[in-house]
């Protein structure tokens, strides 16, 4: 049925996009384009984001109630839809981040057993 899979879904570790978006919104509200650029630049261009795929993700987060949206005006005076973190989103971010870190540590231990002993 759903034959379309966004580039993000295929190139990134599944489930991490949500976390990245939430993290981006942690400090201030932003619109889609800002979020996309922030992720791209923040990862030092490692994570190549097809910006369009961000929008379904934002919609999903909004449906779950983790972010809320409002219409505002962008830096260059264009009407744009801004997203901000909800308290629930904040909780999710903390949970997901700690789970992610756990995962990374676990994988690291397997890939580098020597490191564990030291």
């Amino acid at each position, binding site marked *: 049925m*759903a034959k379309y899979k966004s580039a993000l879904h295929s190139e990134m570790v599944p489930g991490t996009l949500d976390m990245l978006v939430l993290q981006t919104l942690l400090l201030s509200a932003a619109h889609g384009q800002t979020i996309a650029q922030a992720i791209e630049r923040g990862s030092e261009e490692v994570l190549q984001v097809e*910006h*369009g795929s961000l929008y379904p993700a934002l919609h999903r987060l909004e449906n779950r109630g983790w972010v809320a949206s409002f219409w505002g005006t962008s830096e260059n005076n264009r009407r744009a839809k801004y997203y901000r973190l909800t308290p629930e989103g904040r909780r999710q971010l903390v949970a997901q981040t700690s789970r992610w870190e756990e995962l990374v540590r676990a994988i690291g231990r397997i890939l580098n057993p020597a490191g564990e002993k030291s």
Partner: protein
Amino acid sequence: MNRWLRFFRRQAVEAEKREELDSYLDITAKEYMEGGMEAGAARAAAQKKLGNSTLILEEVYRMNSIDLIEGIVRDARQGLRMIRKQPGFSAAALFSLALGIGANTALFCVVNSVLIRPLPYPEAEELVGVTNTLVLQGQRFANVELSPGMYAALKADSRSFERFGVWTAGTSTVTGIGNPEQIVSISATEGVLPSLGVPAQIGRWFSGSDDTAGSPETVILSHGYWQRRFGGDRGILGRIIVVDFIPREVIGVMPSEFRFLDRSPDVLLTQRLSSRRADDFNYSGIARLKPGVTLALANQDTARVLQNWGEAEGVSKMLKELNVQPNLHPLKNDVVGEVGKTLTVLTFALGLVLLLVCANVTNLFLARAHARRQEFSIRVALGAGWGKIARELLVESLTLGLLGGVLGLLAAFAGIRLLVWLRPANLPRLMEISVDTSAFFVTLACSLILSLAIGLVAVLKCGRTGGIQKARGATQDAGQLRTQNGLVAVQIALAMVLLVASGLVVRTFVALRQVRPGFSHPERIQMVRISIPEGLVREPEGVIRIQADLQERFAAIAGVSAAGFASGLPLEWEYAIGMPIAVEGVADEDRMPPNRSVKRISPGLLAAQGTRLIAGRDFIWEDVSVKELWPLFQRIWLARIGVDLQMPWARGFEGECRGHGWKWWEL
């Protein structure tokens, strides 16, 4: 956001997302242009960075969509399109459906209002009609009303009645305010209104002293009469109005929704029972049972009261001879009467009509589905599952069925309005009949079941994988034809049943038309109801004089060829009375003579209503001599006994009337 809310808002959300993507393109393009790009190229680059807008929007749309519903809505649209595209098919199918469903819904409304819904009184299930069964000359009468003696006994002694009273219906004359007016009245003892439990809108019910002889007379107005005659004047309480030439104080007004069983009286009068006669069975009893008392228990208790009463008053012999047994029954029976049977028959008939409609529409639908088998097989070849095609067929039949249901509901509305407007005399509780929510649900259920049945047949015959496979290149096969032939056979069979039934009804009607009712040229007969109240003229001679005078004046009116009086019109059984009549030479001295239905008529009536005498002569006013009549007649203005013309035994009689010329009546 709720999943369903999102589903219904999915169009709006898509528009918003589209705008959001636009704003992304604008912002990004502007940045590129600031970096030195040319406008068109910047826009293209921004679009490239964003990706395929349509795919993004589709992904968002899918997130908000519910696949099944989306499909059903699409199929329903397709169904509506087919209805529009094939007006011939649609008209036939929808007309059948509307007719079948409409008739059944209308009938349901009637059955629901008349038979199922409780009477419009609080705790109506506690209300009972109080009557007796008795046996007279081997004939059993199930609902004989109470006599004053019985009323007094039950009122004093019954342990099962919370409240109890008796009433009679009649007409009364109001004088003293404008033109004299004849109105419908109910005379009730003090216990009747409290039994029904509908409080007066203003004022009060009758009290115990109101129906006792010697106290001032009182009257309670209906809401309608109060509005009509007194303009809803709230100061009406305490006013004196003259009803039947007796001044009565208005003590209350009933609310507008108050009905007395299935009657709408203008006024309620007090029923004063001066006599304590044991065998004057003319008073209908109403009682409210005490909480927890069953009908059987109340019957037992009433039997006990009657027995005690018989012993105390010395009428045990009569009770025994007539085999009087109490026959308490739910008050609803009094209101609904025999109409239940008629409605049951109608329900079956209309059920058959619904089946016929079902077969008819199924056949139409099947023919259409059949013609589309090529289309189905192509779609199957393109990858559509049989489930999709089955769903489409079902949804199409549902669309058709629901549309038919809506039309049916409209038809039912119109039908009920027509019915109420026609006011069939033998349908009780007519004013309570309405199309309500339960009728709506019945219609809905009707259409759903119908359309599911229709759709299923179509799916089984045309929508299955096997069926579709067979359709490749084939034109028609025997299996398909068999179903359709079967349906046609069912239709014809049902139509035959209905035809035979309606044929029988028509035959009955024709036979009824051939009955000679004992009067002729009804279109030339005018009728006026009058009553000369006892309050005005007391002596029988006076009444007779007035009536002879009236008749003369009536007859003198230009264009009137004959005039006469009768206690009741032909075919009006309510006004006939029963009277034991002995025929000389036949009568057995020891036994009570047989009870016959009797009407009282004046000279001239026979000529007026066009009744032909077989032998003898009509009455003349000289016959109306008070002294010559037997005692029962003395109070009455009338000449002689007429015999109810419908009774086949009315070959002739004399007996008490001996010496006044006896006659045979044409039957």
